[in-house]
């Protein structure tokens, strides 16, 4: 049995939260692992590892994806937005402010995924109905809130961003 594993790393270049970024990843690494373990962007979380909870959600070329289901090498040349690119403590986005004001988080673990998913929703549909909100966010699991205050926060964010 071989005692050494062949793990040749691949150089990847992408734009992460508007910054040009270079790093090395093994071919088998997911984008989620690359973000968390190679680039120190721990805002995206692993909840399930196979695309069923949305805690790892990021935007890739503007499209909402579960980064645990994307290989790091697939990010070559792509523009990626993580929760860290959705707003900062000094400059919170309307979505982040509304989540805070509506108490739309309890443990906060699913929150990054929801912030990113909501950003994608409101870019596509600036004035969503409640049904549209629930349908879009069905890929993000929350175990703490029962979703009620999250839906309200998204509605408020849509209004604040001039959705009407």
């Amino acid at each position, binding site marked *: 049995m071989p005692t050494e594993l062949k793990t040749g790393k691949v150089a990847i270049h992408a734009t992460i939260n508007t910054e040009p970024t270079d790093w090395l990843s093994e071919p088998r690494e997911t984008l989620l692992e690359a973000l968390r373990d190679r680039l120190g962007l721990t805002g995206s979380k692993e909840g399930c590892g196979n695309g069923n909870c949305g805690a790892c959600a990021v935007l890739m070329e503007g499209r909402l994806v579960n980064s645990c289901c994307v290989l790091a090498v697939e990010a070559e040349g792509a523009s990626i937005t993580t929760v860290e690119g959705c707003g900062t403590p000094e400059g919170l986005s309307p979505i982040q402010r509304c989540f805070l004001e509506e108490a739309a988080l309890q443990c906060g673990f699913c929150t990054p995924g929801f912030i990113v998913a909501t950003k994608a929703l409101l870019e596509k549909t600036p004035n969503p109905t409640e049904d549209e909100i629930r349908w879009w966010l069905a890929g993000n699991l929350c175990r703490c809130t029962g979703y009620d205050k999250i*839906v309200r926060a998204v509605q408020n964010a849509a209004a604040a961003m001039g959705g009407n």
Partner: protein
Amino acid sequence: MATETKYRVIGTRPVRPDGVDKVTGRALYGADIVLPRMAHARVLRSPHAHARIRSIDTRQAEALTGVLAVVTAKDLPDVDAILMVGEGGDVNMRHASHNILAHDKALYEGHAVAAVAATSPHIALEALKRIVVDYEALPPVIDVRKAMEPEATLLHEDQFTDTAGEKSEKPSNIASHTIAEEGDIEKGFAEAKVVVEREFVTQTVHQGYIEPHAAVAEWRSDGFLTLWCPTQGAFAVRQQCAQILQHPASHIKVVPTEIGGGFGGKISVYLEPVAAILSRKTGRPIKILMDRAEVLMGTGPTPGTYIKVKMGVDAEGNITAAQALLAYDAGAYPGSPVGAGCMTVFAPYRLKNVRIDGYDVLVNKPKSAAYRAPGATVAEFATETVVDEICEQMGLDPLEFRLKNGAKEGDWRPFGPPYTRIGAIECVEAAQGSDHWKAPLEHEAPNGKRRGRGVASGYWMNWGGTSSCTGRLNGDGSVFLLEGSTDIGGTRASIAMQFAEAFGVDYAQVIPQVVDTDTVGYNDVTGGSRTTFGTGYAAHALAQKMQRDIVEKLAPIWEVEPDTITVEGACYASNGKSATIMEVAKLLDEKGIQVVSSVTTSPHNSSGAFATHIADVEVDSETGKVDVVRYTAVQDAGKAIHPAYVEGQMQGGVAQGIGWALNEEYFYDSAGKLRNATLLDYRMPTTLDVPPIETIIVEVPSPDHPYGVRGAGEVPIVPPPAAIANAIYDAVGVRLQTLPMSPAKVCAAILAKEGAA
């Protein structure tokens, strides 16, 4: 204590202090911790539900480049202690240790058998495959009733049935038999006009926190261990690790990271001792993670059960007798919450003649852990559906029945002293007055489905426990509030609010921090619905102590005796001199005088929280799919410190209850293997599975807390399965006696009814 007082801070809805970090992704959870030279570990788990472990050969794994160390149960010391961890529950540490790394037997699929530390998590995973374990597979026991049979295969040859301290003659999978009794049930049932007796079977479900377990361990060269982990109780982790590692607790520091959900499942340790021994063996910090399948198979779900409930009601609608048998599967080691099940099964009712038998039963499933009001949800599912059936047979309004028979202060409880002041009746009355209850219900929905409405009540005890806080006054009048209650749901805010109210400052001036076990005095776990009550109580006591300490330090500056200084909220005054706390803080700071105060409190919490829920469902008779279309949760919170977070607890508990009612279950095959260990097939509610959840907070102040707080976190998960079951009956005329009431089961019940017609 609390009347209709007008509060400054309490009852408002400020933004929580840790919120900004959480919406920007900056908050650090267990798996986010990174240390220099950190190595990575993963756990090897048994593929068998029941097997003797003949040998473990780790040589091939150790030979893999990048592997730093491999450990098994041999690397843990022998332990034989009973530890007082958590709310009065005693934990057998020998069982806990064997659960963390299997000894001579693997007792469930997923039971940890060995662990590897390596330079990368991928190498660690590869190395697991190279560990050779020689198993002798044994017949698995999965069903709780089968496990109770005299000839059942035993999990432990040395386990006997304990009945209030008396040991059975022969070993058994029944670890304990709990009995509660009052009056004469034979006589009571004889007096009844209607008697209903039903049997129920419920499946294992998991707390389902989105964050898997994680731990990081590092040793200092002088024998001090530091652990970082997401946990409901840093001190509980410290105590358990001290026992399991046989290392002094004074030499273990636990730093609680942010925690991504617990619900009772992050109180027992699983990974922390493993990380510690790997770290000691490798001389490097170790981070160890679980993936989702490991969480489902290797941590502590809540028991599957067999329950029998019998109730008798006289012609006037009074309950004359009630009897329950509760058999809960504890998993691989004793310790199911069957005692709590016994305590809560008839809790909403005033009873004269009762008999309750509870059995804690071993099966080849993971060792069960607490899940939000542990033991109560399934017990109330049984009782509240029997009550519904009785009401229907006798033509009684279900809420009127609950008023007539509702438990009040002074009424009997199965264990311990009678009820003190409770809000069971007030919750039912609020439900009656709700828009939901008064809204007419069309049984035929426009889309062709059938609609129905059901109600159910629930109860959960609150624990007081011990909490410590330390306060430091800053020159600008702000106060650092150091506390040790990890924040799962917004308690930093509710604790800071109570301090601010008592100390006379604005909420914004209080800077709460959750700190490690070296930095603050002892704190019991965040659980048992105790945190806003118990740590809030400590914060209130701290405010009062700080005021006294400030008076002592102010007196010489003002050149007066301390006992001439009065404190009214934020105002300090003596003989015509007066100053606000802001002015006093500035004055003391200018003179270089520090105010640092600490308290530790252990208030008794005599009461608990009641809830009454109303559910409207829509049932598709062809597929059996049930949708919850309207839901109202009424709950007695005593006093809602931060109403948005009380509402959040209610809504979150309801959503979990809906999942438990309609879809969640551990699906075992005949070999005892879990067939749905992913979040696709262990399907928890999404945004599409729950309606908007209306909340009505009732406030019957608790007699044990300065602001009247009752614990709010757990009771909301108790009524939903029964409320939904009763609504399904109202919709399509079938009563289900199993959980979950998944489409296949509802469909089968509808077809059976139609076939019988």
